[in-house]
C-alpha cells in the first residue's frame, strides 16, 4: 500500500494543517510547483526565512500589494537566491549572537526554479553551499524557463520540445541530457541532499524536516509538473509526478553524509513511454528516440543503484584518526 492511499487517514497527524503559502496566488491550474512550495513550507514550519529567486513562484505569490506568504520572504533577483539566503543567514547569525534578536533557530531557505538553480544561479548556489551556511536550498524543477514562456534550460530533458529547443524537421527538440544538480551538490560535501516530488507528499515533507535539522547546508531537488509548459492535462499533474518516479526517470532518494538511500522503491518499473505519451512536449518523438531515452534512464538509474549499494556514510569510511594510535 503506497503512502498516497493512506494520506487521508494519516494526514491530520502527519501533515501540518497550517498553510504558509496561502490561497489566492496566481499559479496556473494544476501547477505542480506551487503544490511543491506549499508542501515544502509545511515541512519547514514557522521559524523560517525564505529567499526566492525571480520566477513563476515569485510572480504568482507577490503581486504588490498582495502577498501569499505567511512566513518572512524576500526576493531580490533571478540568479542570486542562494547569495541572498546566505546573507540572511549571516545577518541573523550575527544579530542573534549579539543579542539583537530572539535567541532561537531560524532556518533560511533559498528557493529557485531549474533555471535559477541549474543555469544562471549555479555559481551563487555553489558558493553558498561551499561556504557552509546553515541554510537549505530547494530547486523547484519544472524542466524549462516556464515564467518567460517555456524556453529550454539545462534541466530540460532530452527530446522535450520547448520554445528555444523546438522539435522540427531536422530536430528532436532538446539535444542534451538533463544536468544532475543533486549530484553536483553531493560533490560539494553537502551533508543532506534529497530528491522529492509533490506526488509523494509525505516523502517530501519528511525529507524537508530532515534537511531543516541539518546544521549546515542542505539541498532538495523538487520535481514539479508544469501542465502549461509540458502541454499536459492539468488533472494529470499528480499522476505525471508518480509516473516520473515509476518509470525511474526521477528516482526519489536521499544522500545523508554521503550515504545514498532510495526512499520510494519501484519494484516493477514502467516503460518511459507511459510517462512521455501524456505530454505534448514529447509528442513528436519516434520509437527510436524513445528508446534512446529509455536506455539513458536505465543507465542513470544503474549509476544511482551502484551508489546506493557501494557508497558508505563518511563516518564509516576507511581512514580515521584512530589509525594513528
Amino acid at each position, binding site marked *: 500500500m503506497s503512502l498516497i492511499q493512506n494520506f487521508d487517514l494519516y494526514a491530520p497527524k502527519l501533515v501540518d494543517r497550517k498553510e504558509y503559502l496561502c490561497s489566492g496566488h496566481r499559479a496556473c491550474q494544476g501547477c505542480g510547483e506551487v503544490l511543491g512550495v506549499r508542501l515544502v513550507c509545511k515541512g519547514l514550519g*514557522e521559524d523560517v526565512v525564505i529567499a526566492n529567486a525571480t520566477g513563476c513562484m515569485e510572480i504568482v505569490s507577490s503581486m504588490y*500589494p498582495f502577498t501569499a506568504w505567511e512566513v518572512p520572504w524576500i*526576493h*531580490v533577483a533571478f540568479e542570486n537566491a542562494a547569495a*541572498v539566503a546566505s546573507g540572511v543567514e549571516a545577518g*541573523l547569525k550575527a544579530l542573534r549572537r549579539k543579542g539583537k534578536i530572539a535567541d532561537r533557530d531560524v532556518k533560511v531557505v533559498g528557493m529557485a526554479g531549474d533555471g535559477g538553480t541549474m543555469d544562471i544561479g549555479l555559481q551563487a548556489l555553489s558558493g553558498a553551499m561551499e561556504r557552509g551556511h546553515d541554510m537549505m536550498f530547494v530547486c523547484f524543477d519544472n524542466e524549462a524557463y516556464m515564467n518567460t514562456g517555456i524556453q529550454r534550460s539545462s534541466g530540460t530533458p532530452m527530446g522535450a520540445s520547448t520554445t528555444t529547443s523546438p522539435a522540427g524537421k531536422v530536430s528532436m527538440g532538446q539535444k542534451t541530457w538533463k544536468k544532475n544538480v543533486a549530484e553536483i551538490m553531493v560533490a560539494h560535501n553537502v551533508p543532506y541532499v534529497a530528491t522529492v516530488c509533490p506526488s509523494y507528499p509525505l516523502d517530501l515533507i519528511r525529507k524537508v524536516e530532515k534537511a531543516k535539522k541539518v546544521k549546515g547546508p542542505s539541498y532538495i531537488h523538487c520535481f514539479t509538473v508544469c501542465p502549461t509548459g509540458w502541454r499536459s492535462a492539468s488533472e494529470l499533474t499528480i499522476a505525471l509526478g508518480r509516473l516520473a518516479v515509476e518509470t525511474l526517470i526521477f528516482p526519489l532518494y536521499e544522500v545523508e553524509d554521503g550515504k545514498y538511500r532510495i526512499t520510494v522503491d519501484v519494484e516493477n518499473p514502467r516503460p518511459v513511454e507511459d510517462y512521455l505519451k501524456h505530454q505534448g512536449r514529447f509528442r513528436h518523438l519516434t520509437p527510436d528516440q524513445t528508446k534512446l531515452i529509455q536506455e539513458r534512464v536505465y543507465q542513470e538509474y544503474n549509476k544511482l543503484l551502484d551508489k546506493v549499494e557501494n557508497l558508505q556514510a563518511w563516518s564509516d569510511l576507511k581512514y580515521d584518526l584512530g589509525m594513528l594510535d
Partner: protein
Amino acid sequence: MAKRVGMEVAIAASEAVALCNIDMAAVYPITPQSHIAEHLSDIVADGRIDAEFVTVESEHSAISCVAGACATGARVYTATSSQGLMLMHEILPIVSAMRLPVVMGIANRAVSGPLNILNDHTDIMSQRDCGWVVLFVENGQEAVDLTIQSFKIAENKDVMLPTCVNIDGFQLTHMVEPVEFPDQKLVNKFLPPRKPYATLHPDKPVTMGTFAMGDIFPEVMKAKDEALKGAKKVVLDVFAEWKKLFGREYKLVETYKTEDAECVFVTMGSMGETAEVAVNELRKAGVAAGLVKIRLWRPFPFEEFRAAIGKAKLLMVMDRAIVHGGMGGPVSVEIKSALYGEKNPPAVHDYIMGLGGRDVAVDDFEAMAKKSLEAYRKGVEKDYEFYGVRG
C-alpha cells in the same frame, strides 16, 4: 584630540568600518579594493569587532549577500571596484528600491577594455542612475570620516538608501596619509545602533521585494527619487553633527579661492589636492583661478554648486570618465544642466583626463587653464577635449 597616525588609506577605510559596529560584511577581492577586504578580514579574525565576514564567490553575490543581511536588520558593508562594480550593477537599483541602507566603499578604477587596473571614475559613473547616495573623498581623512558618516546617512529613516564612498584607486587607496581616528565612544554617540523599519524574522513576517506592474511601479520610482533628493538635507545635518562632535567641517561642494576667481576648476575626488597647488601657481602668475570640489555627486547639490562657483566666467571641468556619444564627461553634462536657464552662465570647458591612471600633474592643470583662458578671451566656443591624449 585624537592622535594622527600615518596609514594606508585602504587600511584606514576598513578601520573606519570597524568603528561602526557592523554586523556583517561580504566582499570579493579586486584590485585596488583588496586591501580594504583584507584588513577588514584581519579585524574580524582578531575579534576586534563582532561581525560575520562572508567571503563570497563574486561581486554579484557580495551585493546580494549584504542585501539579504541588511534585510534582517543588520548593519552591513561591502567594497569593490571597477569590473566588480559592473558585475554588481544589476542589483544596485534593486537595493535602492528595496530601501536597504547598504554602505559600500568603491576604490575607483577604470573599466575594461582594455584591461586596466588604475584610477579613473568610469566605474561609478556607469552606476550613476542606480538611486544610491554617492560621495567622493579627497584624502585619507575624508575616507575615514565619510565612511562613518555614510552609515548614518544611509540608515536615516527619511533616506533608507544605499550609500557609497568613492576613494580613488591607488592614488588614494594605496597612499600612506596622516589620519586621525575619531574616538570610539564619540562614534557610538554619533552612530547609535541601526533601527530598521522592517526586518526578515518569523516574529513578524513581512514580504520584501514584491512584483510590481505599471499600476504601482512608477510610484516606487518616484518615492525613491524623492528620498534621494531629500537625502541632501540629511547629509547636511550629518555634516553639521560631525563638525560639532569631531571638529572637521564638510560641505556638499567645497571651494578654494573662488571669491574673486575668474576661472574655476571643478574636480571630484583625490585630484582636488593637486588642483589646489595649481590654483596657487596660477595666482602667482596673475591668473584669478579658483577651485570647486564636488563631494556629493548624488543627489547632485544644484543650489550649492551654483553658489559655489560665484561670479566665475569660466569653468574648467575635470572629467575622469566619458559619456560616449554625448557631450563630454558626466560631470560637465551635469554642470551644464545645473546652469541651464541661469542668467549669464559661465562658459564650461570640459577636459577628459586622467583616464586609466594617466598622471595629471600641477603643470597639466596650468596648461588646461592657459588653453581655456586663451579660447575664452578670443571668444572661441569650446566643449570638450581629451586632454593630453594622442591621436
